[in-house]
């Protein structure tokens, strides 16, 4: 670590980047998919596809609930949205099992086809939630450990961003610079372009990632202020203004909900998305109608959707609850802005797509950085020198995390379609497919950490991503050639993104099998071709 400040920053950037790069690539790729986790889950539950919201959906939902749980403590109906085709019906049974630890009782639930009123049972799958959870707590290790690992990686990512900016000599002069066909130089340019141009996004996503871990990272403040019970902090800060369930009253006829919905929709000017009924079919029934809140990113609380509450027997409006207008402390605002940005909580489809693209740019930055490290050292090899075992290891791990992970995700989707629907523990089996394929890719990568290894993995990845929509055609009735997929654009999008990945993979493969252009400054390439295989691989399949 001798030399100037900038040199030591470069050293820091290089080695922090290398050590955590693999984990960060995996976090970035799976995290990017998380912007579409509900769409992915929808895609992975084809049983629910043939369902659309109709004017009768609510009546049918009430009928189903009356049939299954007419004397429940409460009902909760989530109407279908663009990202979820079926209605979700939940209820709390009257005889509630005593919960230990005071956790929230989730009660029971069914999914209902929104236009036939039939109960649907989607196949057992973790859907997009698996990739989403993987990106902040990994898998197969205790949750806390996984979160700590991801948290440390995030911290080092922040260090890598800052040291990277310091290391970069000519940020503005090189702002638009990309010099292809020059080996290491080109990788550095690509790494710089994806890093500098999207720097605000990279910084935001990393910093807000840390903020989301805030209470785990620094619990001492909470422990000091709430010594008895940390849960008090959360219920105070994140409270949803819970509705205290009253004792159930005497049986009574309930008011028709439909006119109330029309009234609420007229009042707020947007559709009701959730209907809650406390003490249904009793004389103290209460109906609350909820609409989605405005996409303001400085909202005070996680909940806080506008609600209108009605008397469930005579249909009188009791109160209108709006998200709190209380002045919000600046630190709380910052926390909210950053975390909502991280999760794209304001969520219109366009913004979601943009964040998905930002995520891809972030993955591309991490990937080009990893490839740059290996490429630099490959080019430093002397003529006829064989890459050492450490360089081989880095090459292998690069391949396993970049192309290997993309292969594993495609395999996860394919597993969802091909595993028998009635399989025991099906959701876990899908995840097992993911990890077995990833493990196989890792072993292959460590055995062949060279250009032919890259060719094989990229070729396989391309075939698998292409196979996802094709297998979808063969196994479901909601593929790209049906109207259903286009009625729910989320479904068509998943297939189209798979095709786009296949296209990017195909292009990468084509670049890989092309003879590398003889670089002007590196005449050694020709004789060394066999002994010092180039690791050049254009920026991964997902860029």
């Amino acid at each position: 670590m001798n030399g100037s400040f900038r040199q030591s920053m470069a050293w820091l950037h290089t080695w922090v980047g290398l050590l955590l790069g693999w984990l960060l690539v995996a976090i970035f790729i799976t995290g990017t998919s998380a912007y579409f986790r509900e769409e992915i889950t929808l895609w992975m539950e084809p049983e629910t596809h043939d369902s659309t919201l109709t004017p009768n959906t609510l009546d049918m939902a009430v009928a189903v609930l009356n049939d299954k749980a007419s004397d429940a403590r409460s009902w909760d109906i989530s109407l279908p949205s663009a990202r979820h085709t079926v209605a979700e019906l939940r209820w709390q049974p009257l005889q509630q099992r005593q919960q230990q630890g005071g956790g929230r009782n989730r009660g029971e639930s069914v999914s209902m086809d929104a236009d036939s009123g039939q109960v649907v049972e989607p196949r057992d799958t973790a859907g997009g939630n698996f990739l989403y959870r993987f990106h902040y707590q990994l898998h197969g290790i205790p949750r806390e450990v996984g979160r700590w690992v991801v948290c440390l990686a995030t911290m080092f990512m922040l260090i890598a961003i800052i040291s990277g900016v310091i290391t970069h000599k000519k940020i503005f002069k090189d702002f638009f610079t990309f010099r292809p066909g020059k080996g290491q130089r080109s990788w550095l340019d690509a790494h710089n372009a994806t890093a500098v141009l999207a720097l605000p996004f990279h910084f935001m996503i990393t910093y807000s990632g840390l903020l989301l871990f805030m209470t785990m990272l620094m619990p001492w403040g909470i422990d000091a202020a709430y010594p008895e019970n940390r849960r008090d902090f959360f219920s105070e800060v994140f409270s949803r203004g819970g509705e205290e369930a009253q004792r159930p009253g005497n049986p009574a006829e309930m008011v028709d909900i439909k006119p109330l919905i029309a009234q609420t929709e007229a009042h707020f000017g947007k559709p009701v998305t959730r209907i809650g009924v406390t003490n249904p079919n009793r004389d103290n029934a209460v109906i609350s109608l909820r609409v989605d809140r405005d996409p303001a990113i400085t909202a005070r609380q996680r909940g806080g959707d506008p609600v209108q509450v009605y008397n469930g027997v005579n249909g009188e409006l009791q109160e209108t609850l709006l998200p709190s207008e209380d002045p919000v402390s600046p630190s709380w605002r910052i926390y909210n802005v950053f975390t909502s940005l991280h999760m794209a909580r304001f969520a219109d489809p366009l913004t979601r797509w943009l964040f998905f693209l930002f995520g891809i740019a972030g993955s591309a930055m991490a990937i080009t950085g990893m490839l740059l490290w290996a490429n630099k050292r490959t080019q430093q090899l002397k003529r006829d020198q064989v890459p050492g075992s450490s360089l081989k290891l880095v090459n292998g791990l690069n391949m396993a995390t970049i192309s290997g992970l993309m292969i594993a995700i495609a395999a996860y989707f394919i597993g969802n379609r091909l595993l028998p629907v009635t399989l025991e523990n099906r959701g876990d089996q899908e995840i097992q497919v993911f990890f077995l394929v990833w493990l196989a890719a890792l072993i292959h990568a460590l055995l062949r950490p060279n250009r032919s290894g890259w060719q094989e993995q990229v070729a396989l990845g391309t075939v698998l991503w292409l196979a996802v929509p094709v297998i979808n055609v063969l196994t479901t009735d909601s593929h790209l050639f049906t109207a259903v997929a286009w009625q729910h654009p989320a479904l068509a999008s998943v297939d189209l993104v798979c095709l786009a990945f296949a296209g990017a993979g195909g292009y990468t493969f084509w670049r890989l099998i092309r003879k590398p252009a003889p670089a002007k400054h590196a005449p050694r390439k020709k004789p060394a071709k066999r002994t010092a295989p180039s690791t050049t691989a254009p920026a991964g399949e997902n860029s």
Partner: protein
Amino acid sequence: MILLFAVCLAFSGMTLLALAMKRHQPQILDRKLPEPRARLARWSGWACLAVSLVCVLQVWPTGLALFMAIGLFAFAGLPLVFLLPYQQRLAWRLAMALPIASGALALVSA
């Protein structure tokens, strides 16, 4: 639609900013520009980005809009970076044509 216009305008802005830099002038126009012309390119580049920002402010609440604008500028810049060494003339033509086309589209659909 207005967002599409904003992105296209940001692309033109980025191209003009690149045009203001000596290194990229031969790439974009095949010749060096005299200093006053380069300065003009720089100012019009910033002007394009400013108008683009105004458009983005119409779509989202201010805070989010500022963030998204920076993101959109990045997404206008990335294709430019990878276009310049391969298809130089195309970058300039796109910078001219895209805002006009998308602006017309935005007007028609509005």
